[in-house]
C-alpha cells in the first residue's frame, strides 16, 4: 500500500519539500503528479477566504479517500495537505501529491483524491470581500458533485 501523509494545518506548505519526503531514497517511482489549489481574487473583489473544518473528521475522511485511491491504482505514495483559517488571494490552499511507477495511475489517483476531497472532506469556505463586509459562505457547486460521477 501507499505511504500516505495527511495534514490539516493553518500554515503554508512547501510543495518541493513534500515531494522530497515522498520520493526520498526511492528509485521505483516513475511519475509524481501534484495539484496545488490557490485562492483566487475573483476579479479583485475578494480580500480573503476563511476556511473552517471539522477537526478529526477532516483527517479521517481524507484518509478514507486515500485508501480508496490506493485500492484503485498502484500508487506508491499519497500526500494531502489542506489549510484552514484565513487565506489571501494568491496563497496556497490545498496540496495533493500522488506517486506511482506509471504516469497514468499518478494522474488519475491525484484527480480522484481532489474530486472527492472537494465534495466529501468537511471544509467550508467563507468569502471576505474587499469592501470589508463579512462575507458569504461559498455555495457548493453542482459541477463538483458531478465530478464524482465519472469515478463510479
Amino acid at each position: 500500500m501507499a505511504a500516505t501523509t495527511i495534514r490539516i494545518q493553518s500554515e503554508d506548505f512547501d510543495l518541493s519539500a513534500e515531494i522530497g519526503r515522498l520520493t526520498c531514497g526511492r528509485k521505483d517511482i516513475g511519475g509524481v503528479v501534484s495539484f496545488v489549489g490557490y485562492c483566487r481574487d475573483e476579479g479583485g473583489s475578494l480580500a480573503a477566504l476563511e476556511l473552517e473544518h471539522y477537526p478529526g473528521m477532516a483527517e479521517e475522511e481524507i484518509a478514507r479517500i486515500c485508501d480508496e485511491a490506493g485500492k484503485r491504482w498502484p500508487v506508491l505514495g499519497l500526500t494531502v495537505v489542506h489549510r484552514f483559517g484565513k487565506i489571501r488571494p494568491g496563497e496556497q490552499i490545498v496540496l495533493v501529491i500522488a506517486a506511482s511507477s506509471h504516469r497514468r495511475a499518478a494522474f488519475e489517483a491525484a484527480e480522484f483524491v481532489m474530486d472527492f476531497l472537494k465534495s466529501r472532506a468537511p471544509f467550508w469556505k467563507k468569502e471576505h470581500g474587499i469592501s470589508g463586509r463579512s462575507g458569504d459562505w461559498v455555495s457548493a457547486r453542482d459541477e463538483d458533485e458531478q465530478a464524482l460521477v465519472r469515478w463510479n
Partner: protein
Amino acid sequence: MKVVYFAWLRERIGKPDEEIAFPETVRTVADALRHLTALGEEYAYAFERPEIIRAALDRKHVKPESPLGTAREIAFFPPMTGG
C-alpha cells in the same frame, strides 16, 4: 449526545456544539434533525432547508435514514466547499 454544527449552521444556531439528550423516539439522523428544528427560532432558521443539510455520526458521513445507534457525536453541516 454531543451535537456539533459547522459553517452557517453554527452561525445561525449561535454555538459550535452542545449536549442534547434526545428522547427515545429519536432513532435516526432525520429524527434528530426534526427534534433540533423544534428547539427554537434559531434552530428553525438553521434547518429551514433540511434537504441540503449533511450529517456525520462519529465523524463519518451518514444518510438521513441512518440510525443513531450508539454514536457519541452527531454533526450537522452545509454541503462541503473545501479544496
